[in-house]
């Protein structure tokens, strides 16, 4: 007891002599401050997350329980999930989402890798201008060009096709994918590629055997961001698809019609639609910031 006391005294004394300015707040208030911070941080996090939590929870209720007064106590059931799963068309929409999101991501990566490679390793005077111009194409609001794209698609038979959506999403994400790859490629020491070139590697060999393996994490997170953006895209999917090629964004939107208002089923379907992307997002949040801010924020 006494030893402990002297010890504390000794440490506080030591600290006081080490820091020229004495701490104004004693230990007790530091602890309250920490407790307050913890409570505040958690309260706000839970508040922001609440709608998602509530949606997941509602997915496990019966329709009657879902529409009743909000309650945390209920007997969970999988019947809504079974119902959604049982509807063959849910799988069709999910498949459309998968094909369109991954197809457009693959296409965007294939087009963007050579471009980002040359910008990062063979920069010219025009490189920065090209990058900024690419970014500026994102400023063109989709609504501004909805009519021509719709009519073009109608005339060439791309309306309500997966191919049509893949094309739009690829072009929509291309600037961001180029930027993101560019920021990852630029971080790679130039000497490594130089050494490969000295050993007589062609550009293709250089890219395939040196660049891609070395920047795989960066390419992966670029791909994930592109998948997330395509998966969640709603403007084009709602306007360019109807029954055949509609992805999950459009499927979920169909619940907004009065006859489609089944909260438990809506929640179950929504949970199934966002779960994979939510997990992707959690896993790649750090790298995603670099991509989303074009490397301007680290």
């Amino acid at each position, binding site marked *: 007891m006494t030893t402990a006391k002297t010890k504390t005294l000794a440490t506080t004394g030591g600290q006081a002599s080490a820091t020229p*300015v004495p701490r104004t707040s004693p230990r007790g208030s530091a602890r309250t401050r920490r407790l307050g911070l913890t409570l505040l941080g958690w309260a706000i996090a839970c508040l922001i997350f609440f*709608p998602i939590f509530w949606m997941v929870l509602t997915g496990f209720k019966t329709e009657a329980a879902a529409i009743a007064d909000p309650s945390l106590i209920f007997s969970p059931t999988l019947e809504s999930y079974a119902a959604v799963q049982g509807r063959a068309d849910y799988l069709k929409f999910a498949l459309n989402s998968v094909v369109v999101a991954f197809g457009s991501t693959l296409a965007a990566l294939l087009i963007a890798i050579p*471009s980002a490679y040359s910008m990062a390793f063979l920069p010219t005077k025009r490189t920065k201008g090209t990058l900024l111009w690419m970014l500026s194409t*994102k400023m063109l609001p989709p609504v501004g060009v909805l009519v021509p794209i719709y009519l073009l698609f109608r005339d060439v038979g791309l309306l309500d096709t997966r191919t049509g959506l893949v094309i739009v999403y690829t072009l929509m994400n291309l600037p961001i994918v180029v930027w993101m790859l560019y920021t990852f490629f630029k971080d790679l020491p130039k000497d490594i590629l130089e050494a490969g070139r000295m050993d007589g590697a062609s550009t293709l060999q250089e890219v395939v055997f040196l660049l891609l393996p070395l920047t795989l994490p960066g390419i992966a997170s670029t791909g994930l961001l592109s998948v997330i953006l395509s998966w*969640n895209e709603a403007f084009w999917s709602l*306007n360019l698809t109807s029954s055949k090629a509609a992805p999950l964004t459009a499927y979920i939107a169909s619940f*907004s019609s009065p006859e489609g208002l089944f909260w438990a089923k809506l929640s179950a379907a929504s949970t199934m639609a966002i779960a994979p992307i939510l997990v992707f997002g*959690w896993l790649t949040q750090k790298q995603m910031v670099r991509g989303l*801010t074009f490397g301007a924020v680290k």
Partner: protein
Amino acid sequence: MTKTRAAGRTVGGLRTLSLQAPAVTLLLLWMIVPLAMTVWFSLQRYNLLMPEMTGFAGLENYRYLFTDPALWTAMGNTLLLVGAVLVITVVGGTLLAVLFQQEFPGRGVARVLAISPFFVMPTVSALVWKNMMMHPSNGVLSWVAESFGLPAVDWFSSLPLTSIIIIVAWQWLPFALLILLTAIQSLDEDQVEAARMDGAGPVAIFFFITLPHLKRAISVVIMIEMIFLLTIFAEIFVTTSGGPGLATTNLAYLIYIQALLDFDVGMASAGGVIAIILANIVAIFLVRMVAKNLES
């Protein structure tokens, strides 16, 4: 050595061109073709329901649009929506970034929870808010209000635009938080410590050290949000369909109504041109700002 380098450069120029060609060509087409078509259509009489009415209309579509009060309402709503969401997300995001930078138990999990809404697809978040949060009789918000003895609010009929703003802000606040939190992590701790030694309080540290440090990140957040917020569509489509009346119709939704519901291609295109001009006025300032940021 110098020789190979010089040779490499000339070949490099060609290589650069051929390597960038696919991306540049596609983006060029993607930009110019629809843009030219929109401008062309906007000068035409072109209604899919009245195929006999064709021909050059001059600025007639624009004249109609500009004399139509709907355009001004939609423009006002667009700017109000963008402005309100930007203020909420930037101010809220900055404060939350400071909060989540502090050390507390479970901080990592709390952060992940707080940034989650950004990954939820807009149609899902709109429906969840509309049905389960803001429903006038069975929603969580009205239940909370009633348990405090307050009257329940019928969100979408009495506060339509506010409801949309809440939903959109909920989606984008986590984005601002994510970016600003990353930025704040690169803040020099020694500098903060030095300021504290000099007697600066937390408020002074926030305004004179944290905020200036976040300047670049904030400008990036504003730019990216602007790109997306100017064309908010799904949230309106799913919840209010632009109503009641025109209360929640923004420019994106107005063009959608004219193009795909009224089939008036000429009018819709004129609206599209206005949307493009509006976005570009914003973009001119923003791109310049980002370009400056990238140089430093």
